């Protein structure tokens, strides 16, 4: 541009994609909530990676099984041996919280990954081609919308038994419906955009149009939603664990640990906060984890908002 020669000189040696990425990152990190979100999530990622060092597993073949010393139902307060104390059944709270971080990421990534992949693929195809495939798919999605999560989860657990993977399946089976709708509406908007029409005129195949023109312009709402969903999936999984549909007893999972502490949320009458540690540590982890993803999602939304992005 003739007018911004000074800017050109600065930017000349940078690859444009890098410049674009920088621009987006600057936008994201101008937002204080994004910084908090990223700090929280980096903390959890750090914990998840360093889990074997923070809390060395007792059984190498099954690290997610929480070690427990004894079977006493009464929790024990933090001590030198158990820094965060033990919960009902004498499970080590620290161990559960640390390995539970890995479980949380596992749930979030698997559910969002599956739902996103299925949802985006179906949504793009339906939105781009339209016609009967779109009609049938969307009616099918309507049917899926009518399935309550709890009923589905119970059915699956009854059929296949209690286990984390069954919860993940149940969540993924209902979650993809969101992605289909969001991406389809984006694609419908883009389908008639002039740059897509121009590509058609040049004889570009549908597959290339989708990959080059449609997806890069419609994927952002999905990223934002995926980020928000990472948190909400973990909270839903915790809830299912809490009601007894989730991970089996003794599995390192925050929901499971809250479930174990169910009877000790309120202590004896003279000291109601006696067992605070049983509920506090797993509880705060769930809250911060969800908060982190939500703040990040919020910041992404601001950063990708096309109205704010360019002058």
């Amino acid at each position, binding site marked *: *541009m*003739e*007018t*911004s020669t000074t*800017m050109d000189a600065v930017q000349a040696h940078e690859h444009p994609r890098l410049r674009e990425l920088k621009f987006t990152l600057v936008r994201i990190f101008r937002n204080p909530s994004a910084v908090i979100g990223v700090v929280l999530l980096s903390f959890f990622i750090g914990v998840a990676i360093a889990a074997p060092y923070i809390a060395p597993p007792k059984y190498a073949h099954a690290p997610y099984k929480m070690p427990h010393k004894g079977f006493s139902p009464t929790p024990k307060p933090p001590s030198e041996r158990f820094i965060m104390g033990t919960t009902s059944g004498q499970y080590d709270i620290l161990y559960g919280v640390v390995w539970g971080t890995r479980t949380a990421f596992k749930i979030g990534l698997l559910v969002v990954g599956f739902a996103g992949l299925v949802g985006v693929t179906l949504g793009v195809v339906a939105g781009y081609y339209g016609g009967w495939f779109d009609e049938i798919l969307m009616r099918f999605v309507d049917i899926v919308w009518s399935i309550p999560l709890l009923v589905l989860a119970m059915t699956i657990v009854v059929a296949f038994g209690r286990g984390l993977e069954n919860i993940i399946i149940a969540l993924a089976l209902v979650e993809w419906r969101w992605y289909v709708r969001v991406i389809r509406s984006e694609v419908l908007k883009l389908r008639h955009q002039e740059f897509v029409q121009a590509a058609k005129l040049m004889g570009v195949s549908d597959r290339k149009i989708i990959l080059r023109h449609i997806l890069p312009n419609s994927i952002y709402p999905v990223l934002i939603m995926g980020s928000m969903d990472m948190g909400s999936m973990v909270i839903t999984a915790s809830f299912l664990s809490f009601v007894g549909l989730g991970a089996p007893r003794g599995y390192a999972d925050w929901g499971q640990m809250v479930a174990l502490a169910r009877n000790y949320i309120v202590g004896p009458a003279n000291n109601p906060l006696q067992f605070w540690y049983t509920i506090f540590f797993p509880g705060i982890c769930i809250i911060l984890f969800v908060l982190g993803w939500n703040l990040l999602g919020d910041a992404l939304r601001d950063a990708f908002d096309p109205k*704010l992005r360019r*002058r």
Partner: protein
Amino acid sequence: MAVLLTAQDLTTNFYTYEGVVRALDKFTLSIDHGCTFGLVGESGCGKSVTVRSMLRVIQSPGVIEGGRVLFSEQAGTDPIDLLELSEEEMEGIRGDSISMIFQEPNAALNPVLTIGYQVAESFLFHRTAQMSTRICEKIDGGVSFGLLTPLYRAMLSIAAKSPKSRFLKACSRIPLLRRWDTPVKDEAMRRAVDIIGKLGIANPEEIVTRYPHNLSGGMKQRIVIAIALACHPTLLIADEATSNLDVTVQAQILQLLNDLKKESISSILLITHDLGVVAETCEKVGVMYAGTLCETGKVEEVFSRPLHPYTQALLTSVPKFHQEGELQSIEGSVPNLVYPPSGCRFHPRCPKAMEQCSIEKPELKELRKGHFVACHYAEAQVGGLV
């Protein structure tokens, strides 16, 4: 001729992520009573920002940094500075003494309200007191408004004095009492029908009951004009009012504006990028470039003997009926106003640029009678007022 509106050193900045956009830089302009003034310039040169600053409807992140906007409604009276009025006083001026027509009639009309209501609203907002007095006089003269006449008389005499009083607002919540303004509303509706009829729309009684989506583009623009004209403004600002319309409809609207000006409005400020519209409808013209006024004067004068290189280039770059040879274009593009060029903002694209141009910002000077130019080159050529 008496001056109606003057903008002096108006400066408006937009604080965006990219930096401070210096949209208006010491902008100076004056409009006379009874004059049709055309403000032309390319998109992004600050035409709309100018009027929005003058009416103080700049949206965030825009901030009016300085200057004065002097407005004297009656010729000869002391001007008031619009930038110093309170927001409430400004509301009384917008839509009353100064009103505005926007480019997009669809955005200016509310799709869920009837045409009649939207036109009448303008009367209700600005003319409740006047209409109340009129109705009180009628009641005193023996005209009956049905059973509630005594109530109307009592309430309207309050409304005649202070139409926005708290008491009346409170009354509007009480059953029966809240019907005090029925005669005023009826009167406003009658006036709405009246003014729509005056704009050359067939059966206005029927039109007032319709909704905007029932009308065509040209018709909607007429309604917008009706709303703007409702209170007989002294200045009508038309911001690209005909740009989105077809040639034949544009011809209708321009003719309408011309007729109206003779009858009811004192002055029109026409903002457009179409030089043809200015040439055909305006008496005076101001040419804007990148937030500054480069040249202003009588249309015939400016268009036939332009002094500023930008005006000259602009005039040779539009196709004409008698086009000879190739169209000349201006090299380069409009500057990014985050980094405005130093000195004269046109100098990087100016074929006549001198050394001085990049250093010193030229002042607007009267180089011929009534013909003001802000250009060092023109100044050197003409050499002051001839």
